[in-house]
C-alpha cells in the first residue's frame, strides 16, 4: 500500500483534513513562528554551501532581521552559473530531483528540488488542493485512493508534471492519460486521450488550463446534436454515459454540455484567466473552478479554501517577503535600487506587492524575486474562518503596462475587460507603443467574428474604465483614450503557433505573451496576418 493511502486506511476524515488542510486554521502568529523557524534552519543549512556563501557574501545571519538586512534581493541570473549546469556540489544538500521551467530567451531555468520540499510542496499540497477542490464545507474529504483525474500537464521535467508523477508514487491516483505515457504526447493528444478514457470510467477530478475547459465547453455547445459517432463510442459504458447526458440535456432543453457527461468532484485550473472564465466553467462543467498558485522554485505555495475565493499561503514551503507597489515601481525605474520588503504579517488588504521568496528545506533560492505580483483581497476570510491574509494572483511583474504613470493594467484586468465586452476571440496581445510621440496601448486581437475595430475599441475602453478605477480617473482627468486596437485576420495566432512549433520552441514560447510582447513577436504576428 502506498504511503499516503495508509492515512486514508487508518485515519478518519477529521484527521485526514488536519493532515493536508490543517494549516488553514493557523493563526498569523503561528504562521510567522513557522516561517521564522524554517528560515533560521535554512540559513544554517545553506550558509556553508558554495552557492549560499556567494549569495550571502560569506556571512551567516543569526536572525530574520539580520538576514533581510544583509542579503540582497536576487534573480535567477545570480544562480544561473551554478544551476544551469546542475552543479550539485554547489548546493547545501543533494537534490532529490531537478525540474525545469520556462526561462527567458528560450533557455530553461533548472531548479533543484530537495526531498522534503518535494514532499510538502508537491505531494502534500497536491493532496490538499484535490481535497479542497471537492469540498463544500470545512472537514469534508471526498478524495479516496484510486481517484481518477484528467490531467493536462506539460511533459517532465516541468515542475507540474514531475509533481504529479511523484504524487502517483505515494498515492493511488489514476491519471488520464497515465503519467507513464503522457511525456511523449502532444497537448492535443493528451486532451483527446484523457477525455476518451473519462468517457468510459468517468473522472473524479479535472486538472487543466481554464482556457482548454472553456474551449471544450464551447465545442460541445456548437456540436451538440450533430455528434459524430466513432467505434470507440460503442462501448456500453460510453453509450450509457451518452444516453444519460442526452436525457439530462433534453430535460433542461439545452445542448449537451460536459457537465452532463462528467460530474467531477473538483475542477482544478491554472492560468491567470481562471477567475475571468469562472462563470463559463461553472456553466459548462457544473463546478466552480479551483485555483492554486504554483511555481517551480517552490511548488504549490498557495491554495484556495473550500469556498474557492482568495488563496492562502502555506507556511512551510518558502519564506515570504513582499515588495510594496511603490518600492517595486522605484526598482523598475532604477535597476540598482534595492527595494524594501514587508513580511506576511505586515501586508495590507487591497495592496499590490511583488513576491520575494527564500526557499526552505535546503533549496537554493535566497530573497529571490520570483517575478509575480500578488494582491491581498483581505486579511482573513470571515466566511471560512481563516485568519490568514487572502491572496489573489495579479500577474507577472513584467506584465504590467503603465499608462501615463496613473493607471497600471495587468493581464487579468485587460482579459476581464475583453470578456466583459463580449468579444469572442481566438487570442490577443497588448503592449505599450509610441504613436506620434504620445504613449498608447495597442491591443492586437483576432476576433472570431467580423468586428469593427473602432466599435471594439470603444467597448473595450468603456470596460476598462469600469474595471480599473485609475484608468477611469486617467481618461476623465486627462481626457484621453490611449487605447488602440489592431484587428488581426482569422488564423493569425494559429499560424504563429504552427511556426513556433516548427521551430521547436519551448512550451512557454509557443504563444505570444499577452502583455508587453517583444518587437520580434509583434512583427511576426503582423507579418503572418498579411499572409493569411
Amino acid at each position, binding site marked *: 500500500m502506498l504511503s499516503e493511502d495508509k492515512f486514508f486506511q487508518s485515519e478518519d*476524515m477529521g484527521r485526514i483534513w488536519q493532515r493536508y488542510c490543517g494549516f488553514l486554521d493557523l493563526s498569523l502568529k503561528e504562521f510567522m513562528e513557522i516561517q521564522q*523557524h524554517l528560515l533560521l534552519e535554512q540559513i544554517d543549512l545553506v550558509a556553508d554551501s558554495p552557492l549560499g556563501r556567494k549569495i550571502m557574501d560569506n556571512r551567516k545571519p543569526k536572525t530574520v532581521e539580520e538576514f533581510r538586512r544583509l542579503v540582497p534581493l536576487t534573480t535567477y541570473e545570480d544562480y544561473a552559473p551554478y544551476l544551469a549546469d546542475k552543479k550539485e556540489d554547489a548546493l547545501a544538500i543533494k537534490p532529490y530531483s531537478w525540474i525545469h521551467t520556462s526561462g527567458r530567451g528560450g533557455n530553461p531555468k533548472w531548479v533543484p528540488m530537495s526531498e*522534503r520540499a518535494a514532499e510538502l510542496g508537491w505531494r502534500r499540497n497536491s493532496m490538499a488542493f484535490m481535497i479542497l477542490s471537492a469540498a463544500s464545507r470545512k472537514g469534508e474529504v471526498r478524495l479516496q485512493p484510486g481517484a481518477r483525474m484528467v490531467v493536462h500537464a506539460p511533459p517532465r521535467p516541468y515542475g507540474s508534471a514531475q509533481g504529479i508523477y511523484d504524487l502517483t508514487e505515494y498515492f493511488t491516483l489514476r491519471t488520464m492519460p497515465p503519467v507513464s505515457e503522457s511525456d511523449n504526447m502532444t497537448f492535443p493528444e493528451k486532451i483527446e486521450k484523457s477525455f476518451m478514457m473519462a468517457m468510459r470510467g468517468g473522472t473524479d477530478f479535472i486538472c487543466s488550463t481554464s482556457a482548454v475547459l472553456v474551449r471544450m465547453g464551447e465545442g460541445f455547445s456548437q456540436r451538440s446534436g450533430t455528434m459524430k459517432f466513432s467505434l470507440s463510442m460503442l462501448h456500453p459504458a460510453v453509450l450509457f454515459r451518452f444516453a444519460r447526458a442526452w436525457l439530462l440535456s433534453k430535460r433542461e432543453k439545452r445542448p449537451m454540455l460536459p457537465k452532463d457527461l462528467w460530474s467531477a468532484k473538483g475542477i482544478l485550473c491554472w492560468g491567470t484567466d481562471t477567475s475571468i472564465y469562472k462563470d463559463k466553467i461553472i456553466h459548462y462543467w457544473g463546478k466552480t473552478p479551483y485555483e492554486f498558485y504554483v511555481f517551480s522554485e517552490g511548488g504549490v505555495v498557495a491554495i484556495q479554501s473550500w469556498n474557492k475565493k482568495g488563496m492562502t499561503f502555506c507556511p512551510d514551503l518558502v519564506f515570504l517577503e513582499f515588495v510594496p507597489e511603490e518600492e517595486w515601481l522605484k526598482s523598475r525605474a532604477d535597476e540598482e535600487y534595492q527595494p524594501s520588503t514587508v513580511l506576511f504579517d505586515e501586508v495590507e488588504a487591497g495592496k499590490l506587492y511583488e513576491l520575494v521568496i527564500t526557499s526552505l*528545506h535546503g533549496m537554493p533560492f535566497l530573497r529571490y524575486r520570483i517575478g509575480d505580483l500578488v494582491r491581498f483581497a483581505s486579511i482573513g476570510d470571515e466566511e471560512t474562518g481563516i485568519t490568514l491574509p487572502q491572496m489573489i494572483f495579479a500577474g507577472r511583474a513584467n506584465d504590467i503596462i503603465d499608462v501615463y504613470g496613473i493607471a497600471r493594467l495587468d493581464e487579468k484586468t485587460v482579459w476581464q475587460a475583453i470578456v466583459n465586452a463580449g468579444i469572442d476571440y481566438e487570442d490577443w496581445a497588448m503592449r505599450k507603443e509610441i504613436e506620434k510621440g504620445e504613449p498608447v496601448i495597442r491591443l492586437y486581437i483576432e476576433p472570431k467574428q467580423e468586428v469593427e475595430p473602432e466599435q471594439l475599441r470603444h467597448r473595450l475602453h468603456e470596460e476598462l474604465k469600469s474595471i480599473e478605477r485609475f484608468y477611469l480617473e486617467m481618461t476623465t482627468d486627462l481626457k484621453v483614450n490611449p487605447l488602440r486596437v489592431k484587428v488581426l485576420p482569422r488564423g493569425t495566432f494559429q499560424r504563429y503557433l504552427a511556426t513556433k512549433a516548427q521551430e521547436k520552441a519551448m512550451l512557454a514560447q509557443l504563444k505570444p505573451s499577452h502583455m508587453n510582447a517583444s518587437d520580434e513577436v509583434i512583427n511576426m504576428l503582423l507579418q503572418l496576418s498579411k499572409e493569411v
Partner: protein
Amino acid sequence: MSLYLTLPLVGGIISLGLTCLLLKGARRSPVHQTGLGFLYFMTLYGFALFGMRNSPDLAQALIWERPVLIATSALSVFFYHFSFHFSRIKPRRWVIPTIYLFLAVFTILTYTSLVVSGMDRDVYGYVPIPGPFFPLTVSGSYLFIILSVVNLVKGCKASQVYEERNHYLYIALGISFNILGALFDIVSIFGVPIAPGGGSIGNIAFCIFTVVAILRYHLLDIRIVVRKGTAYLLTSAIVAVPYVAVILLSNPLFGGIAPLWAYLLLLVLFALGLQPLWSRMQRLVDRWFYRERYDFLRELDYFTQETHDISDLKQLGSSLVNLIRRALQTSSVRLLLSEAGDFTVISSTGGEAAQLTLKSHSPLLRWLQSNKGLLHRQELDFIPQLQSLTARERNELENVEVFVPLKTKKDELVGLLLLGEKRSQQPYSEEDNRLVLTVASRMAIELENAYLYELEKDERTRLEALHEQRNEFIP
C-alpha cells in the same frame, strides 16, 4: 408486567434514545449513516418484539413476529455495512449491493410461510414455528455479524492509534453480548427450556457499546476496566463467601436468625477489612496483568514519591530514565533539560544518541509548551505546526515514539522525556500514558530544582575561581 414482556420495550426505548443521540451529534459521515440504519432496526426490533409478546392471540403474534425477523436481518446487514466504514476497509464493488439484495429478498420471503409458518405457544409466551428457510436466514444474519467481526479485527490490527483500538474493543464487547443473548433466544425457539430474554439484554448492551464507539467519546481503557473489574470481583467473592458463612454459622447462636445489630456489626468489621484486602487483590491482579513490569512500576512509583538529593542532577536523571525504560519496557529513554532556551540531553538509556539539541525556536518545543499532555510520534504528520519540522529535525527524532513534556506548576516547560518504541512494538496504552504523565508532573519540579542547583553550583565555582585569581594578584 413481567420482565419477559418489558425487556424488549426497554430495549426499544433505549435504542430510540441512542438513535436520537446519534442524530443530534451526527456528522454526515458514512459511519454515522450506517450506524443510524443499524439503530433504526434495533429500535424496530425492540418495539416489534414487545408487540409480539403482548399479542392477545397467535394470529396477532405472527403479524408482529415478521417485523421482528426483518429487523433482525436488517440490523445485521447495516452493521456489516457499518463495519466497512468504521474499519475503513473498501469492500469489493459487488458486496454492498449484494447484502442489500439479500435483505430485500428476505423481507419478501418473511411474508410467506417459507421463513415462519405460524406461531405456537410455549410456557412463557409465543414462539415462531420455523419454516424451511428459517435456519438459512438466521444463519445469514449471524454470518453478517461474523463478517463484521472480521472487518473490525482487520481495522483494529491496521490502527496504530491506541484509543482507536480501544473503540474496536468496545464494539467487540458489544457483539459478544449480542451473540450470547441471541443464542439464548435461538435455543429457546428450538425447544430448550430457557426463557428468551437474553437477546433483548444482549441487544441493549450491543447498542450502547456501538454508539459509544461511534461517537468516539474519550473512553476508559478497556484493559483498565477489566483489570479493576477483576480486582473488585475477586474482593467481592472473598468478602461475600465468609460473610454469608459467618451469618449462617452464627444463626444457631442467636436461636434462629441473627438480630439486625449482629448483621450490622459484621458488616462494619468486613468493611474495615475490605480496604487492605482490596489493595492486596489489586496488587495480585496487577501482577497477573503486568508480569515482569510489575516490580519496576512499583519502584518507579516509590521513586517519584520520594524526595531526592538534588545535588546530583546526572544521578537523578540517570535513575529516572532507567526506571522508566524498565517500567514501560521501552527501547530507549532520553531526558532533555533546558539550557539557555535550547533543550539538550542530560541522561539517556537504550543506546540512543545523546547529542540531540532542540533549539528554542523549534516548533516541537513551542507546541509542547502551549499544549497539554504528551505527544505521540504520528502527530508529527498531522499537526500543521509540527509538519514544518525540517528533514534534519525529523531524522534526529526518528526513533522517538512519545514526547513527554516536563512542566512546572506554572506551566513552564523545563524538560522533555523522549520515549522510544516499546520493546513489544505495541503502541503505548492509555495506562502507560497516564503513568508517564504522572511521573513527569512529579519529576518536573525536582529536576528543575536540581538543575537550578547545578547552575548555582557552577556559578559559585566560577566566582570562587575568580576570587582566588584575584587574591593571587592582589597581595
